[in-house]
C-alpha cells in the first residue's frame, strides 16, 4: 500500500538553511545541497525548500541551489516562498522543482492557483496554508499570510476546500501556534482539513519527537509529515523516524 511520507523541510535564506521559532529568531543549519543529499541518503521521501526571505537576489540564489540539488537527488522537490505569478512557477519547475508551493499569492489572487494548475497540472501545485487558532471569529482556525504577519479573515478549513476545488494537488498545513515549539502538530486542525478535502495533506509545525510524527498520521490524518529542526540538528535521522513509525503500525518506505 501507499506509504506515509516524511518530508524534511529546508528553510533557505541567503543560500543557507536556517530554522526559526514561531517564524522568528533564525539559526544557521548549514549548506542546502549538502543537507539535501544527506536526507536523500537517509531515505527522505521528498524535500521541501522554503525561501523565507524571497527577495529578488535570493531568488536567483535559490534557483541555483535547486538546479544543483535536482542534478544529484532523484526524489520529489517542492519549492515555495515568494511565488507570485504563473511565470515564477515555470522558472522553479525549469530549475528542477517538481512541485511549487503557493501561499500569500493564493490569498491575494486565487485565480493564480487555478491558472497554474491548468497550465502545469495539479500534481505540481501545492497550496501552503498558515493557520492560527483565533477566538474573535465564528470559526476555529484563521488563515494568515506574509509569513504569518497578516490575518485574512478566512476560515482555514473552508479555504482548504476552496483551494482543492481550484486545482491544488496537495495542501501543506502549518500551525503557526506550533511552529518551532516542539510540542507536536496541531492534530485537530489537520484532521478537520484532511476530512474536508480529497487531496493529500502535509502536516507541518511543531514536531519535537518521533511520537509526534505518529500522532500526526494517526490522530491528525496527515498523508505526509514535514519536519525541520529534529533532523537538522541531528536529534534523529529520517531512517530512525521511519523505523519508529513502522513500529507503530504506519506504512513507510524503508
Amino acid at each position, binding site marked *: *500500500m*501507499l*506509504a*506515509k*511520507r516524511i518530508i524534511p523541510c529546508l528553510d533557505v535564506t541567503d543560500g543557507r538553511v536556517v530554522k526559526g521559532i514561531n517564524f522568528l529568531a533564525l539559526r544557521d543549519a548549514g549548506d542546502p545541497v549538502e543537507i539535501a543529499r544527506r536526507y*536523500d541518503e537517509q531515505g527522505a*521521501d521528498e524535500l521541501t525548500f522554503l525561501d523565507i526571505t524571497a527577495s529578488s537576489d535570493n531568488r536567483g540564489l535559490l534557483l541555483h541551489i535547486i538546479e544543483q540539488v*535536482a*542534478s544529484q537527488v*532523484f*526524489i*520529489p522537490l517542492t519549492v515555495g516562498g515568494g511565488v507570485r505569478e504563473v511565470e515564477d512557477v515555470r522558472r522553479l*519547475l*525549469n*530549475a*528542477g*522543482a*517538481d512541485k511549487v508551493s503557493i501561499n500569500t499569492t493564493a490569498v491575494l489572487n486565487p485565480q493564480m492557483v487555478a491558472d497554474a494548475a*491548468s*497550465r*502545469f*497540472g*495539479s*500534481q*505540481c501545485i501545492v497550496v501552503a496554508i498558515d493557520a492560527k487558532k483565533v477566538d474573535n471569529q465564528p470559526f476555529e482556525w484563521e488563515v494568515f499570510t506574509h509569513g504569518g504577519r497578516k490575518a485574512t479573515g478566512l476560515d482555514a478549513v473552508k479555504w482548504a476546500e476552496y483551494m482543492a476545488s481550484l486545482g491544488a*494537488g*496537495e495542501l501543506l498545513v502549518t500551525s503557526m501556534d506550533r511552529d518551532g515549539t516542539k510540542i507536536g502538530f496541531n492534530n485537530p486542525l489537520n484532521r478537520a482539513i*484532511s*476530512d474536508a478535502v*480529497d*487531496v*493529500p*495533506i502535509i502536516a507541518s509545525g511543531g514536531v519535537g519527537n518521533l511520537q509526534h510524527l505518529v500522532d500526526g498520521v*494517526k490522530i491528525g*490524518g496527515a*498523508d*505526509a509529515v514535514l519536519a525541520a529542526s529534529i533532523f537538522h540538528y541531528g536529534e534523529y535521522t529520517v531512517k530512525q523516524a521511519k523505523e519508529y513509525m513502522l513500529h507503530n503500525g504506519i506504512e513507510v*518506505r524503508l
Partner: protein
Amino acid sequence: MKKIDIAVVDYGMGNLRSVSKALEHVAPSKNVLVTSNPKDIANAERVVFPGQGAMPDCIRELDSRGLRDVVIQAAHNKPFLGICIGLQMLFEASEEGNVAGLGIFKGKVKRFAAADMKDSNGDKLKVPHMGWNQVYQANQLEVNRSPHALWQGIENGARFYYVHSYYVHADDASITAGFSEYPQQFTSAIASNNLFAVQFHPEKSANAGLQLLSNFVNWMP
C-alpha cells in the same frame, strides 16, 4: 549531426528537466535530447515519452506539434519508455475529459473513485494517489518466464513514486508487467515487444527508479 541516443518527447506539457537529468545521471556518455522536433524523434535510438497534467491537454499539444505519428511509429519500432500520462496516452480513451488516446493498446484510462476508498484505519484514501507505493512485477502470465528486463536488479515490491488520479485498464491482461494496490489492484506497468510504460515516476523514485532508467538505456529488446 550528432547521434541522438535518447530523445525525450517535449510537447510543452510540464517539466521534463527531471526526466532528462535522471537519464543523464544513469547514462553520462549518452546524448540525451529533450525535443519537439519529429525528425529528432524519428532518428533517435531510444524514445522516452513522459507526461504531466491532464490527458486532453497532452493529446492536444502533441497534435499541435505534429508529433502523433512519429510517437506511434517509435512505440512500434524502437526501445520506448512511457511515463505517467505517457503510459495513459497509449490507450484508446480516457475518462479524463472523455478524450481519445493514441490507441496503441486496447483499453481505457479510469479515475480512482475517491469516495469509496478507505485504508485499513478506515481513513479515506486521497486522490491524487501521491507518494511511494509498492510495485509487484508480473511475469506476464507465462509459466517460468522471468521478470521483464527492465525490472533487473529491482526487488519485487520495491516502492516507486506516484502522482496521478487516473490509471489504465488494459483489455489484454497479458501486457501487464507490474501492478500496485490503491486499495484495489491496478496496472502500474505494461510491456509489449520494444515498449515499456509505467504509471509511476522512475526519475523521482531514488535508486529503484534510477535502476529502471539504467535498464532502459541498456535494453536490447
